[in-house]
């Protein structure tokens, strides 16, 4: 699968709300609080930039035979001869010089260049590795990646996004009346893609910049021509032989897509095997994970967990788009994010050891050796990341159980990460956590996903909407299987259109259509399968889980965790709450309030914060106001959060992370009573920090 397709398969203003409308308690989730020291970014986090080409120089002659090796670069990045044919110009019209080519041919320096998170993750999954000593990126072949290589990768990624954008716009325009102005929805989609850096075809851009809203017919012609060009470009990436193989059913050893190796080096494999062994022990203790592991049995019944890696999945530790883990659909491996693993490791260490460890762990080799030689700490980290590993294993099972992904890799289905896959991974991940909590209520208190999973207990429809909402907001255009089918139809209609152009195109497009009809079949089967699984979950599995969870509040209270009990009690549907007992609510509230007001030893801020929300809900339900000691306890904890968020802003490398930390600090500060002790000092500090 080309990188662009892998990236597609990965996940990748108005005035503020008035104070009167704002909730008093901000969302109870603190990535930085209680985690100890944050990881250090190290030299290779792109902070020493910018990485600029030399100014001026000697223009190159297009006729120079020594330039033949640059042909792919010219084609992908838009380098072209000028009108005289004696000079080469880049896409911005600047002359290409010998000095510029020498700079492009040199290895990319990642101390000076910050890569987008999805590109970095995609490269890591393709086997590219960072050389921490030189800040070079090393290709799977062992060769350093040059600046020119990097530009070509980025250009191919842009072209892939452009193709997807054109498919979306073409679909919207298809329903528009040709003589009328383009629907605002289509224009907004095109402008949003423009803002996201997708290179728009020149004629589409001219129409948009024209100051008048073009008619659907005028825009359709430009989009149609651009889409035909895009299709020809991607057609040019494949041979007739390749298309012929993709048109046939998959025969292992003949035309099955080759997968890159999961591990690059024996060190990665050694750690991966240790992690798999530890994980197996954790998963053996939970019926939901045992059920999942059953899907990974071989013909003799032995379980083989997917290969596991620990890699930096973003270049910088505080990139706001930080994944916890990813599954590689090409080889089924699961990769944990180095930064996430490091956070949990640092939190376990005694405070006096954290600074030194953070310096060492910038280098993944040091982190790997530590994990290999400290089985207790390794097991403790896995106990914290088991939910994300479980989530990724669900994806791995999705890849195994249907032909959808394999046909996508063969080019027979439009590249996508369907949201239905995420719905299933999220709900199964929550089922795992909630089942784990039945035995160990503390698991719910420790998990960063607990509120999210309790939302699922409250109702699947709202839970699903939250996930879909988040992805639609984060990824230009939704990726439901219906949308994939729409884009697939666009590809098929363009293939039919191109068929008439020549005999060669006839053969090429016919093979594509045969392959895509195979893809259509898998897509259709996959849609039916995912819909059936979702229906089964909503109507059978979730009600059973809700019934089981009705026993948890009393159990948590008896085990000294009334806060957990109260949170579950508040989330249960009415019938299940009634099963738990009405008197229980009052007892849980009373016990939880006592622990919020006077926290016992070992009580953590991250455990208490969501309990304030549950207590507020129960008090509201009983029609009671907050007792004064609870207000004081809230102000105390919220002030700690403000301080922690201000510290996080101070240490942030990424300006987006700093802005998010400051916004969070402001939100928490706004929830503290005006006369609370220490509030004025925090407000003054925030005022100094805010831009």
């Amino acid at each position, binding site marked *: 699968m080309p990188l662009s397709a892998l990236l597609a398969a990965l996940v990748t203003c108005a005035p503020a709300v008035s104070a009167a409308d704002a909730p008093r308690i901000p969302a109870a989730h603190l990535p930085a609080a209680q985690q100890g020291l944050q990881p250090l970014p190290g030299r290779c986090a792109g902070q020493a930039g910018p990485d600029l080409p030399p100014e001026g120089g000697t223009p190159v002659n297009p006729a120079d035979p020594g330039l033949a090796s640059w042909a792919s670069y010219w084609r992908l990045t838009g380098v072209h001869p000028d009108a005289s044919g004696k000079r080469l110009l880049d896409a911005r019209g600047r002359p290409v010089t010998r000095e510029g080519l020498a700079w492009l041919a040199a290895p990319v320096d990642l101390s000076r260049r910050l890569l987008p998170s999805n590109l970095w993750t995609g490269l890591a999954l393709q086997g590219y590795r960072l050389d921490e000593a030189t800040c070079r990126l090393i290709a799977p072949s062992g060769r350093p990646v040059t600046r020119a290589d990097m530009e070509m990768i980025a250009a191919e990624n842009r072209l892939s996004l452009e193709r997807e954008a054109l498919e979306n716009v073409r679909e919207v325009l298809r329903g528009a009346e040709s003589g009328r102005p383009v629907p605002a929805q289509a224009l907004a989609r095109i402008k949003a893609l423009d803002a996201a850096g997708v290179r728009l075809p020149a004629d589409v851009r001219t129409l948009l910049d024209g100051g008048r809203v073009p008619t659907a017919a005028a825009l359709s012609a430009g989009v149609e021509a651009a889409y035909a060009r895009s299709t020809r470009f991607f057609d040019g990436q494949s041979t007739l032989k390749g298309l012929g193989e993709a048109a046939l059913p998959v025969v292992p050893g003949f035309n099955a897509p080759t997968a890159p190796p999961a591990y690059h080096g024996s060190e990665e494999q050694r750690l991966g095997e240790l992690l798999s062994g530890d994980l197996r022990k954790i998963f053996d203790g939970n019926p939901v994970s045992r059920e999942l592991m059953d899907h990974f049995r071989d013909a003799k019944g032995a379980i083989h967990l997917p290969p596991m890696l620990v890699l930096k999945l973003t270049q910088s530790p505080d990139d706001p788009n930080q994944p916890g883990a990813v599954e590689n659909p090409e080889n089924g491996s699961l990769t944990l994010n180095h930064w996430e693993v490091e956070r949990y490791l640092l939190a376990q260490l005694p405070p006096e050891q954290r600074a030194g460890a953070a310096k060492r762990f910038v280098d993944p080799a040091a982190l790997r050796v530590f994990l290999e030689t400290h089985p207790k700490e390794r097991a403790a980290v896995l106990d914290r990341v088991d939910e994300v590993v479980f989530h990724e294993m669900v994806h791995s099972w999705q890849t195994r159980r249907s032909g959808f992904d394999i046909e996508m890799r063969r080019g027979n289905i439009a590249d996508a990460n369907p949201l239905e896959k995420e719905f299933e991974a999220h709900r199964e991940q929550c089922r795992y956590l909630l089942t784990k909590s039945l035995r160990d209520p503390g698991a719910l208190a420790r998990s960063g996903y607990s509120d999210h999973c309790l939302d699922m207990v409250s109702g699947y429809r709202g839970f699903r909407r939250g996930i879909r909402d988040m992805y639609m907001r984060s990824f230009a255009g939704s990726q439901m299987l219906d949308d994939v089918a729409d884009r697939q139809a666009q590809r098929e209609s363009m293939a039919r259109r191109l068929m008439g152009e020549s005999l060669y195109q006839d053969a090429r497009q016919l093979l594509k259509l045969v392959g895509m009809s195979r893809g259509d079949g898998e897509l259709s089967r996959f849609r039916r399968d995912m819909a059936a699984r979702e229906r089964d979950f909503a109507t059978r599995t979730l009600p059973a889980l809700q019934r089981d969870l009705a026993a948890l509040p009393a159990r948590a209270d008896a085990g000294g965790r009334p806060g957990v009990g109260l949170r579950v009690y508040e*989330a249960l549907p009415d019938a299940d709450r009634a099963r738990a007992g009405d008197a229980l609510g009052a007892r849980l509230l009373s016990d939880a309030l006592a622990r919020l007001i006077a926290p016992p030893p070992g009580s953590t801020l991250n455990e208490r914060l969501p309990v304030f929300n549950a207590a507020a809900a129960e008090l509201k339900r009983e029609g009671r106001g907050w007792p004064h000691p609870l207000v004081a306890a809230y102000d105390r904890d919220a002030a700690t959060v403000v301080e922690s968020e201000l510290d996080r802003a101070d240490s942030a490398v990424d300006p987006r992370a700093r802005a998010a930390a400051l916004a969070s600090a402001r939100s928490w500060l706004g929830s503290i009573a005006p006369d609370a002790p220490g509030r004025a000092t925090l407000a003054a500090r925030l005022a100094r920090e805010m831009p």
Partner: protein
Amino acid sequence: MRRVLLAAAAASVLAACGRARPAPGTPVEYRAPDGAFSARVPAGWKVDDAPADEPGADFYGPPDGPDPFSQSMGISFHPARAAEQDARAFVAARSAAGPSAPADALDGTRDRVIPDVHLGSRRVTTRTVAVVVPGGFYALSHDWPTGTAPSPAFDALVKSFRPGPAPKP
């Protein structure tokens, strides 16, 4: 079932009275496939009324503007014997009114974090309004990114919401 409300609504408007297609943002009538309720939703919002645990529908929008598809609204039915009391409990569990904010028993707002293994965490503000009907209550909810302005479409949806006969769960 997934569709764009513009197309569905426009088709019915055009067929019914031959008027022009409504501009995006113009409220159009959405009627649940089983006739359980109706409400006005801006044209162009995506509708998802696929069956789930609770009968209802979800809407995603706005389709244009600086932040397209950044908000969503949902309508879901919850059967209950003590409908008024259960509706209050439902909203209470979805509110975080805090020590001094006024409490409206059937209208609550809270912040929440939606964590994702791939995308990191996103902060969302959710407002929930309960409408009590015989046999249960409807929950009308609205999610928008914390710190941004909520779309006025939700107030219009609440105002125009008309329940029909109680649906079968």
